[in-house]
């Protein structure tokens, strides 16, 4: 029994190792320092007697390839003039085949935009708590002190943080850039750093040049969101008098105007006193929404306060007016 258990756990370990290895081979390739060996065998017959001979064994060591990919994770950030600590989110991935440290730099004095964001001090942070934005737990980056050391295929999330100058006008765009460079070295693909790879192997610059940079963008936004509410009453007798039992249908038209994006816009309305929500009466742009908190964007809750909410998502002027309807009856 003891033996069977240990055999089973040994298989588990082998399986995990194999998965890890095959994952790695997908992107970064064979790990630097791996010896590739080859031996040929010849079989032949000498006057009817079978013979077999092996060749010498040739061993070729895989050199370290230096590659990095920087990607912007955040869309254009809508800001107001004078805003402080506005962050752009980046991901830095080691696409080489050996562990490598990277030097990070940022710049906000770029051409092709309307204003220069002002780097905060410090301006580069690791998203230590994986929150996707700047928070107290995030560690500032100090060049040469905590350069991110990444295993092949591993990534780190990096924030660059800028203040927005005052006196800008709506629609102004400002660029800010994060750059990463392999500590071993950068250069044209194929550039050789002899003996500087893993375990004394050579390091060779890969197709990315072992560096990368990406711009993120701030947009000064004056977006405003308006909601216009109207109502129609129909009483039980075919008229429009607000009597007990009459049904009130509310229509709310939400529209965004100006430049920029109203992120994660939500409409919330409390059911008036002395009325009762009509189940399954919520509509968005003519499409019925269910009352439950589920995959669609509409929700009705009875407690603690009866209210209707509709998640409208990111609204821009181009989104056009969003028409919400729901109904109540008078108690």
């Amino acid at each position, binding site marked *: 029994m003891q033996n069977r258990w240990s055999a089973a756990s040994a298989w588990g370990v082998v399986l995990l190792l194999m998965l890890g290895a095959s994952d790695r081979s997908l992107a*970064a390739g064979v790990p630097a320092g791996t010896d590739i060996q080859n031996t*040929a065998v010849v079989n032949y017959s000498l006057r009817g007697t079978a013979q077999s001979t092996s060749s010498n064994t040739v061993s070729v060591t*895989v050199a370290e390839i230096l590659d990095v990919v920087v990607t912007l994770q955040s869309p254009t950030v809508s800001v107001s003039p004078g805003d402080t600590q506005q962050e752009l989110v980046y991901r830095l991935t080691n696409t080489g*085949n050996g562990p490598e440290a990277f030097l990070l730099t940022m710049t906000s004095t770029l051409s092709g935009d309307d204003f220069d964001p002002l780097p905060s001090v410090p301006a580069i942070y690791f998203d230590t708590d994986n929150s996707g934005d700047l928070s107290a737990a995030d560690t500032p980056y100090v060049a040469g002190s905590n350069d991110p050391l990444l295993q092949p295929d591993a990534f780190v999330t990096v924030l660059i943080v800028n203040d927005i100058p005052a006196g800008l006008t709506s629609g102004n765009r400002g660029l800010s850039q994060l750059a990463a460079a392999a500590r071993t070295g950068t250069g044209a693909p194929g550039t050789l750093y002899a003996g500087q790879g893993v375990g004394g192997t050579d390091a060779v610059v890969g197709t990315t040049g072992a560096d990368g940079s990406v711009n993120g963008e701030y947009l000064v936004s004056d977006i405003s969101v308006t909601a216009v509410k109207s109502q129609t009453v129909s009483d039980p007798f075919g008229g429009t008098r607000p009597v007990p039992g009459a049904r009130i249908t509310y229509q709310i038209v939400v529209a965004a105007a100006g430049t920029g994006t109203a992120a994660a816009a939500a409409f919330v309305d409390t059911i008036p006193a002395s009325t009762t929500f009509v189940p399954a009466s919520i509509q968005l742009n003519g499409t019925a929404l269910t009352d439950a908190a589920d995959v669609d964007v509409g929700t009705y809750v009875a407690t603690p306060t009866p209210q209707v909410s509709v998640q409208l998502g990111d609204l821009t002027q181009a989104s056009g007016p969003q028409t919400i309807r729901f109904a109540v009856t008078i108690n």
Partner: protein
Amino acid sequence: MKKGISSIVAGTLVLVFAVVGQAAGQPAAGCIVLKTVAEVEQPYTTDDGETAKRLVPAAKVVPGGEVVWTVTASNVCDKPAEKVAIDNPVPDHMRYVPDSAMGPGTDIAFSVDGRKFAPPGALTVSNADGSERTARAEEYSHIRWTFKNALQPGSVAFARFRAVVK
């Protein structure tokens, strides 16, 4: 006395190294001496100013890099060697380059398991549902060159293939 002991120790060490060298792949005695070489293609400019490629020893390889493996078989005896076949596994961490195997005067067969060999179109593998399909070149794990004629005394035959570092 002390000096005598240290020279014995030194002699033992030399012997150990020799044995290790043998085990690490020195060709064993026989009528065919088999030699494997790893090379990479390197572009260079000819005297005429044209760009050409030549093979240089594979000092370093990187993922995606191609290695040219060449095996030479020399008959060092005074009798012809018959039914000569060279077997070479596709090295670990490498992927065979389609249509790259060559060898003058040979029939070339492939295997995905080192046991069943067949020409490219005839080699099959089993799908998960039990049906069979033609093996793809990147699945080849072994290559076999079978020489059509006997290898005469003093002559040299060669086989070559290319593989890419995964």
